[in-house]
C-alpha cells in the first residue's frame, strides 16, 4: 500500500502528516506574504480612502477589524466542527490536529470581536455591553471555545480527549445559526446583517471594498496561523511518540543488559 492510489481525494492525500508537513512548508511563506500584503492594503484603504459614515462618522473604521474578527470567530468554530466530524466519522488522521489547532485561534478572534464590538458600541449605543441576542450568543461561542480547550486539557488520554472534544464541538455547532440569525429572530440593539444578506450588501462600495480586503487578509492570516499551529501539533505528537518509544526501549534494555553495555542511545534522560 505504499503507492499513492490514483482516485484519492485531496483530503485522503493530505491524510499523511509527512505529506502535510512538506506541503505546508511550501505554502506557508506565500500565505504569510499574502496576508501581510492584503492587511497592509486594507489598512491603507481603511484609513486613507474610506470616507466617514454619514451616521457613525469615523467610528465606522472599527468595522474593518470587528466584522472580519466576527466572521473568523464563526468560521473557526465551523472548521472545528468539520474537523470533529472528520475525526468521528472518517477517522482522518489530521482531523483532530486541525480541530485542536483551530481552537485558540478561534477563541482569540471571538475575543477580538467582543472587544472591538464593545468599543464600537460605547460611542454608537452609549454602552459597552447589552445582553441582546447577538452579543450574548457570541459570548456563548467564546465560552464554547474555552470549554473545548479546557475539556481537552483535562483528559490525559489523548484519543479519549479528542473524541469527547469532537462530540462537544458538534453539539456546540448549533450556536452558529443562532448567532447568524439572532438579529432577525429577536429584537437586538446590534444592527441586522448588512454584507451577507439576501438582496446584496447594504454598504456603499467605498466602505465595502476596504472591509472585504481586510476580511480577505484576516482569512488568509487565519489559514496561515492554522497551518502553522497544525505543524506545531504534529511535531508535538512526534516528540511524544519518540520520547515514549525511547523510554520503552530503555526499560526493555535495562533488566537484561549489564551497566557497561547500556549504550542504547547515549545518556538516559
Amino acid at each position, binding site marked *: 500500500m505504499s503507492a499513492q492510489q490514483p482516485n484519492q481525494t485531496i483530503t485522503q492525500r493530505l491524510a499523511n502528516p509527512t505529506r502535510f508537513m512538506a506541503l505546508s512548508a511550501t505554502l506557508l511563506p506565500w500565505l504569510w506574504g499574502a496576508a501581510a500584503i492584503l492587511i497592509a492594503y486594507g489598512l491603507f484603504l481603511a484609513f486613507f480612502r474610506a470616507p466617514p459614515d454619514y451616521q457613525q462618522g*469615523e467610528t465606522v473604521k*472599527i468595522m474593518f477589524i470587528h466584522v472580519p474578527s466576527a466572521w473568523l470567530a464563526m468560521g473557526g468554530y465551523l472548521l472545528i466542527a468539520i474537523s470533529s466530524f472528520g475525526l468521528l466519522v472518517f477517522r482522518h488522521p489530521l482531523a483532530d490536529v486541525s480541530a485542536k489547532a483551530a481552537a485558540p485561534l478561534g477563541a482569540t478572534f471571538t475575543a477580538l470581536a467582543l472587544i472591538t464590538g464593545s468599543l464600537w458600541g*460605547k460611542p454608537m449605543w452609549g454602552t459597552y455591553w447589552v445582553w441582546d441576542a447577538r452579543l450574548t450568543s457570541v459570548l456563548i461561542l467564546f465560552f464554547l471555545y474555552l470549554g473545548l480547550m479546557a475539556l481537552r486539557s483535562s483528559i490525559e488520554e489523548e484519543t479519549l480527549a479528542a473524541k469527547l472534544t469532537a462530540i462537544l464541538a458538534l453539539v456546540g455547532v448549533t450556536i452558529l445559526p443562532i448567532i447568524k440569525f439572532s438579529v432577525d429572530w429577536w429584537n437586538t440593539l446590534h444592527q441586522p446583517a448588512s454584507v451577507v444578506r439576501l438582496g446584496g450588501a447594504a454598504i456603499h462600495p467605498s466602505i465595502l471594498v476596504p472591509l472585504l480586503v481586510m476580511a480577505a487578509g484576516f482569512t488568509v492570516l487565519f489559514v496561515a496561523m492554522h497551518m502553522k499551529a497544525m505543524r*506545531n501539533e504534529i511535531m508535538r505528537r512526534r516528540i511524544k511518540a519518540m*520520547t515514549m518509544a525511547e523510554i520503552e526501549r530503555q526499560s526493555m534494555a535495562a533488566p537484561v543488559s549489564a551497566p557497561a553495555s547500556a549504550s542504547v542511545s547515549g545518556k538516559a534522560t
Partner: protein
Amino acid sequence: MSLGPHAAFIWISYLATALAVGVLLAWLFWDGRRHERRLADLEARGARRRSPGKTISPD
C-alpha cells in the same frame, strides 16, 4: 488624519487587535521553534517513533 471625537475607541480597537494577533504569532513561532529543536535533538540521538517491539506491516 483626524479620527473625530471617538478616536480613542478606534485606536484602542486597532491596538487590541494588533496586540492579540502579535501575541498569537509570537506564541506560534516560539512553539514551532521549540518543537523543531526538540525533534532535531531526538533524531540526533537516534530516537524512533516506534518502540522496538512493534513492527511495521509491509503493506
